[in-house]
């Protein structure tokens, strides 16, 4: 082992579960993951929309060198996203390590990822740095305890743009101040089935929080996954925002979902079992499976396993299926580009095989 951080390869990631769907951590039957990100900019450089190609490159080099010399982790993977093939960039989106716009942008940019896939730093996204910590289950305080020292460490080497009145300065004024975005990904299938998902939207609206889909801003809530995040970043401390989430917002929504699950089991057990068994039956027998179908069927199966309605499927297997049936993961696993029906067939095969369903071609 060398003294410096050991660089990892992207393929090292695909061999592990991926933090966001590891399925561990407190309240993991409902809370998929907790995420905190901090937006930071290097003082003296324009924000990215006004950077020349030369400035952008200089920033990328400087931030990358700083991250790698800081030893954020014992093993760090740095991906040069300008050079990386599209499939690799999409794989990182599917693992929630970079945003979709960051994957699809152009120009010098990258991402640093720690060995455990809990911490990552996007370089040259909307802001010069977007530091992120992602942890399974409800672990917001743990995420803050992890991200705060990373921010301190980077700050000791980089002069971050800061204003006494406005706090950390960001390209978009909606992020200014703490630059913090706290997001919790929730799995709420029962609320959807009983037709009470509106309660979540109302609660979020009352608390001035945003509700988004699986991959963040501008995406739909597929597979009954909902991401709740704060909007205000100015005038509230990081600890206050986190504490509000942990003590007010999330317990309330978890309660709604628990209540809906109990009501289903008590009042409509046949309907509940029908949803779960139909999902398992289709997953074990289908020959063509789109991403959307897989997500919604796996969602019902996940609920069924957690509620004890299905005994012969392990929850880790379900979480693995969520991750690996996404388009880039599937293609990476198959080692080739797959389009349309070929991809849907490969997805169906993989799921059938993993769930012990019909053998291929029978």
């Amino acid at each position: 082992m060398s003294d410096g951080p050991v660089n990892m390869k992207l393929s090292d990631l695909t061999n592990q579960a991926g933090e966001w769907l590891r399925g561990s951590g407190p309240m993991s039957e409902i809370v998929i993951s907790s995420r905190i990100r901090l937006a930071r900019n290097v003082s003296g450089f324009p924000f990215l929309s006004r950077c020349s190609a030369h400035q952008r490159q200089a920033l990328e080099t400087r931030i990358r060198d700083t991250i790698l010399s800081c030893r954020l982790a014992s093993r760090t993977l740095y991906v040069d996203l300008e050079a990386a093939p599209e499939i690799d960039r999409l794989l990182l989106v599917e693992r929630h390590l970079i945003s979709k716009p960051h994957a699809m942008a152009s120009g010098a940019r990258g991402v640093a990822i720690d060995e455990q896939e809990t911490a990552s730093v996007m370089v040259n996204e909307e802001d010069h740095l977007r530091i992120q910590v992602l942890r399974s289950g409800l672990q917001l305080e743990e995420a803050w305890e992890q991200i705060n020292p990373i921010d301190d460490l980077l700050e000791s080497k980089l002069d971050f743009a800061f204003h006494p009145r406005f706090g950390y300065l960001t390209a978009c004024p909606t992020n200014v101040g703490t630059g913090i975005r706290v997001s919790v990904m929730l799995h709420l299938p029962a609320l959807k089935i009983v037709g009470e998902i509106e309660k979540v939207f109302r609660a979020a609206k009352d608390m001035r929080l945003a509700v988004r889909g699986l991959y963040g801003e501008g995406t739909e809530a597929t597979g009954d996954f909902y991401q709740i995040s704060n909007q205000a970043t100015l005038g509230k401390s990081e600890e206050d925002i986190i504490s509000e989430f942990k003590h007010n917002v999330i317990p309330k929504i978890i309660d709604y979902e628990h209540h809906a699950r109990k009501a289903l089991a008590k009042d409509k057990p046949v309907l509940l079992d029908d949803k779960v068994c139909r999902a398992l039956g289709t997953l074990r027998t289908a020959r063509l499976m789109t991403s959307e179908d897989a997500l919604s069927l796996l969602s019902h199966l996940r609920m069924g396993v957690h509620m004890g309605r299905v005994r012969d499927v392990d929850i880790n297997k379900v979480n693995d299926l969520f991750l690996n049936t996404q388009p880039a993961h599937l293609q990476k696993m198959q080692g080739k580009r797959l389009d349309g029906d070929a991809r849907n067939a490969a997805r169906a095969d993989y799921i059938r095989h993993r769930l012990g369903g019909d053998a291929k071609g029978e």
Partner: protein
Amino acid sequence: MKCDKCGKPASVIVTEIQAGKKVERHFCEACAAQNEGFPVKSHTPINELLTNFVLAHSGAQKEGASACENCGITWSDFRTQGLLGCEQDYTFFEKELTPLLQRAHEGATHHVGKTPARRGSSAGPARRMPDLAKLRKELTRAVEAEDYERAAKLRDSIRQAEAGE
């Protein structure tokens, strides 16, 4: 009707009260612009007229046109793109940004929370910032309790603390 100056058909009528008497003068567009300082363009669409009127009276036209010396963006550039160009824009456009920040951040206009350690000594801003936050909270409470004497004292302390930043 003909122009009082050149005899061409007149399209501008100027009514003035001179020594208590109503005097009407007629000009063509060119003479009106030259002699009376009226705009030549006679067919300004109503929406443009209204926009110009509103902008002129809100002072926004002037602000929208001035560019940040550091990055070169104008306020209207920002309104179109939604992104600022550099850190100095926060100072340059402070007046315009304030109401927008209030809308986006539940009425807040001041940062509360983490401060870079290098901003002053270890006993400096990092510690002072939470104090300021505490003072602001106390001020809100004092106002709510209608304790204006205390509120005034707190306001002065906040001003003092801010000036020291």
